Structures are given as C-alpha cells and as structure tokens.
C-alpha cells in the first residue's frame, strides 16, 4: 500500500526534527524550508538523503533546489 500524504508528512517531520531540532509539529505543507523553517542547503541535502532511506525516492541535487516548500517535497515523493 502506498504511503498517504499524512504518512509522508509525519515521516518528513521526524526526519527534519532529527536533523535540525525543529519540532515535527512545525513541519506543515505550506512552510517554506528557507523562509519559515530556516533550513540551509546542507541540511536540505541531509533531509533528502534521509528521505531517500525512508521513502525509497531519490531526490537529486538538481531537483532538490526546486523544492521550496514542505508541500513540494510531499508531491515529489508521491509522484
């Protein structure tokens, strides 16, 4: 069974919390990584790597730079 958007959001929240210390509850779809969550490019790479382990979807660097919001990542992983 494919993971639902809610499952991915929760998994992503956990990953972001582990890497950056930001509470998982703050990781909501409309949030921008840079402007709202203050996550830098190196942390984004770490998040992408952890997301690959968790969800089995590779997010290459050239795609990663286009993923501005949590929603963008959710959509990328689901597709």
């Amino acid at each position: 069974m494919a993971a639902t958007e809610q499952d991915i959001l929760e998994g992503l929240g956990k990953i972001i919390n582990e890497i950056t210390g930001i509470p998982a509850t703050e990781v909501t779809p409309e949030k921008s990584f840079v402007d709202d969550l203050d996550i830098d490019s190196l942390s984004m790479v770490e998040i992408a790597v952890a997301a690959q382990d968790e969800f089995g979807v590779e997010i290459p660097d050239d795609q990663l730079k286009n993923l501005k919001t949590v929603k963008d990542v959710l959509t990328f992983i689901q597709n």
Partner: protein
Amino acid sequence: MRILDTAPGAKVLALGHYQPSKVVTNDDLAKTMDTNDEWIQSRVGIKERRVADGESLVDMATQAGGKALAASGLSAADIDLVIVATCTLESQIPNSSAVVAHRLGIDSPGAFDVNAACSGFCYALAAADSAVRGGSAKHVLVIGAEKLSQWLDWTDRSTAVIFADGAGAAVVGPSDTPGIGPVVWGSSGDKYEAIRIPDRHGSLGQEGQTVFRWATTALHPVAKLACERAGVDPSELAAFIPHQANLRIIESIARKLGADNAVVARDIVTAGNTSAASIPLALSRMLERGEIRSGGLALILGFGAGLTYAGQVIEIP
C-alpha cells in the same frame, strides 16, 4: 627467489604535529569577503584556522616528522622509509619526502609522496603497515602535510573559509600483535570534478553540495567495514577520527557509525580543514590534550578529492 623476514604486525609508535603560529579567525575573513562568524560556524564548524606565514610545506612536514621521531625514542638512523601524504607541494619535483628525510638527518631512506588528497594519510599509513609487515622497512615515518593556503582563491568564500595549513606525523614500526588494521580503500572517479585544483595556476574549487551528499551517504559503510575487517565492533572504539572536512559531515558519519563509546574528533573547530594532515594532526593534538588515551582503538577515515577514501582501525600510541 626468497622473501624477507616479515613482522607479525605493525603499529603506530608515536605521533607529532606542527601548526603555523598565524591564527586566522572568522572575523578576520569577514573583513575581506562577504561572510561572517555565524555562517561559517553553522555550515562548516570552524572557529579559527592556521595559515602558513613563511613556512613551506617541507618546513611544516619536517617539524611534525621531527617531533614524532623524538617522541618515538628512535634515532634518525632507525628510519628506513619516509612517506609524505600531500596534494599541495610547491614543486613538481623533487618530492617532499626525500627533502624532509634529508633535513631530519635520515640517511638514504626509501622516500615517496602519496597524493590521494584528503585521504592521503590513511593510504600512506596502509603502505607503511605493509612495508613493515612485509619486511621491506623496519621503521617508517609517515607524514601528512598540507599548505592549502597557497592554492586558494582568497576571495572565494566557499573555499577560503574551510581550508588551512598544518602537518601531522606518525612513526610506524614492527609489533608482535597488529596495531594497524586492514585498510578499506576505494574511489569514485565519476565524481572527479567535485574537488579540483585544475593546474598550477588554478585554485581549489569544490562542488560543496555534491561532496556533502557523497560524504554523508557513501562513507559510513566504509567506516563500518573497516571495523569489521579489523574484528572490532564500533562500540569498542575509544575514538573516531575522520578527516576534518566539515563538522556536519563528521557528526553525520559518527551518528551512522554508532560508535557510542568513542570520542569523536572535532579538531576542525580550531585547526580548519588541512586535507591529508587533518587526521594525524587531530590524533596528535587530541593525545596531547588528553582527549584520547594510549592503548585505545581509534578508527581513522580519510576522504576527499578523486573522490578517494580510505580507513582503518589503529591502536593509539
């Protein structure tokens, strides 16, 4: 044909290091380029670094090598092989190892340089271990020395804030039990463009994100394999001393390695990234500061341009 008398094992007998006295802080760098202390510390983990102020690479290597030799209690005449790991030597020839040996009064040793960039010390140590166990050398002086400052574009804030100068050295000799574990080494030549000094007029360029991703995904399996090959569980490690590339890479690999009882080297904070020098520099400084103890097991892991990597478990002298 016959082979030489071999040794059952080899180990690191003593360490030494040298750093230039000139300290460059993040605030110093912020005066000449668009960067700041907070940005550098959060991205790279460096507070200050040392930069050569007149010292040549050979000067630094000689100082570090001389200290390791003195700490070993051996004399120059006991050394029959000198290996210098470096990628920043001023000259194409002669190599640095023969000159360093000459300056230390080591008479006619085998002498070669190793260029595996930031992995160089682990490659050189593996070569020394093999030479001692195979009987082609009895005591080897292994040095990691770099003068990155002369290969940097000091207006490029993506590299100038990271790299630094220094040297670290180890004396390797025979031992009844193994004190240097099997090396795990390899390379990813497909990423050869990720870290480069293209020619002698060029400066160091780095694709930071590519390297960061590689370092945080490809290296913890190498670290685990080096432990496995040595028959050591990561929980038995007293220290984990990876190349001091970036504090966030160091912490990421350490977390994934799961060496829960190990002191993790954070020498980069005050030494910067000194490429092939960073591991012996960290080892020597940590021993001097009492952060690690003689007799404990340390996993060392080099990685860098090539891309290359190498790691092994060693007994701390």
